[in-house]
């Protein structure tokens, strides 16, 4: 049972988040947490910490009006600068995958898929 790993990932994702101000990111973190617990469901079925986490997630999602459907990963983004906080938390940079990656991974790996013919 790897519920502690799920707990750690959730705590890491939400550390430093101001819940009221960052509800979108909070919901993303909760969905990811929920997804993680589902993956451990079979192995953790007799684990109290697991059941506690599942109930806790449901409560928090309800409290913050989080949709169960939606992204579970925030877009990769650079560390916000003080300027980001002054202008917008949703500045266009976060809507540009390559720009948001520049510091962490300047050359992301791309994949291709194609379908043609008969």
């Amino acid at each position, binding site marked *: 049972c790897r519920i502690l790993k799920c707990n750690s990932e959730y705590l890491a994702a939400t550390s430093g988040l101001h819940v009221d101000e960052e509800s979108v990111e909070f919901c993303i973190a909760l969905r990811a947490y929920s997804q993680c617990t589902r993956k451990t469901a079979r192995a953790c079925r007799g684990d109290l910490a697991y059941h506690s986490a599942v109930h806790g997630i449901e409560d928090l999602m309800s409290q913050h009006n989080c949709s169960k459907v939606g992204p*579970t990963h925030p877009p990769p983004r650079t560390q916000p600068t003080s300027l980001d906080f002054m202008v917008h938390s949703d500045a*266009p940079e976060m809507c540009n*995958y390559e720009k948001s990656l520049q510091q962490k991974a300047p050359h992301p790996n*791309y*994949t291709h*898929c*194609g379908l*043609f*013919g*008969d």
Partner: protein
Amino acid sequence: PHLRTFTDDFQTCKVRGAWPLIDNDYLFVQVTNVAVVQGSSATATSKLTVIFKNFQNCVDQKVYQAETDDLPAAFIDGSRNGGEKHGANSLTVTEKAAGQYIEIQAKYIGTTIVVRQVGRYLTFAVRMPELIMRSFEDNQGLQLCLKGCPTNERMDWRLVEADGGHLPSQAAVAHPSFMRETATAKCREKLPVDDLYFRSCVFDLLTTGDLNFTLAAYYAFEDVKNLHSNKEKFHIYERTADFPPGNSAP
């Protein structure tokens, strides 16, 4: 249709009806394939649906849908971008050639999609970051682009080749003069390298006698050249057959 997966596997599939190509946290793509000739299980794509899922403060959920003879340069709600949000222009539809070629740029997920109509059928190509491609749950379901077609949906085109280049029965009635030599010559004009795009082209001509499939294979390879990140992997060769001059077997 012929499928090149995210892992550069190359398959020819039956997959008649509606099948998901991509289904991840950000994007859903489904194709509908119909039979191309009686007497053959070969199919081609007549409809394509792409759903860009609602994404934070960038884009609203948008649906793009194309069908044979209807390749719109807009989402189904008539818009050409991601809606009303702050980053709406990070999702755009562009018409490159009216009724033949559209490109969708989804910058917020670093993704480019190309949809073409060649003859009566559609072609699809996508370039997507690996991180986005892998953003799905284990139980999220089938994605042809990820793992290819189920084994029982794959076609072995060497059966057609072993037939001596003669067409399957019903197609032979429709195109009695279309022999292997003709198909090879037509495909060679557009695809000089004897790779799987060339062989797909020959297969398609032998199966249907429809010369438009030569162009479909040609444009599919053009899309690879534009969208694939590794020039060394543009061409894919048949693993078990002879290899082209200058290329030794792995």
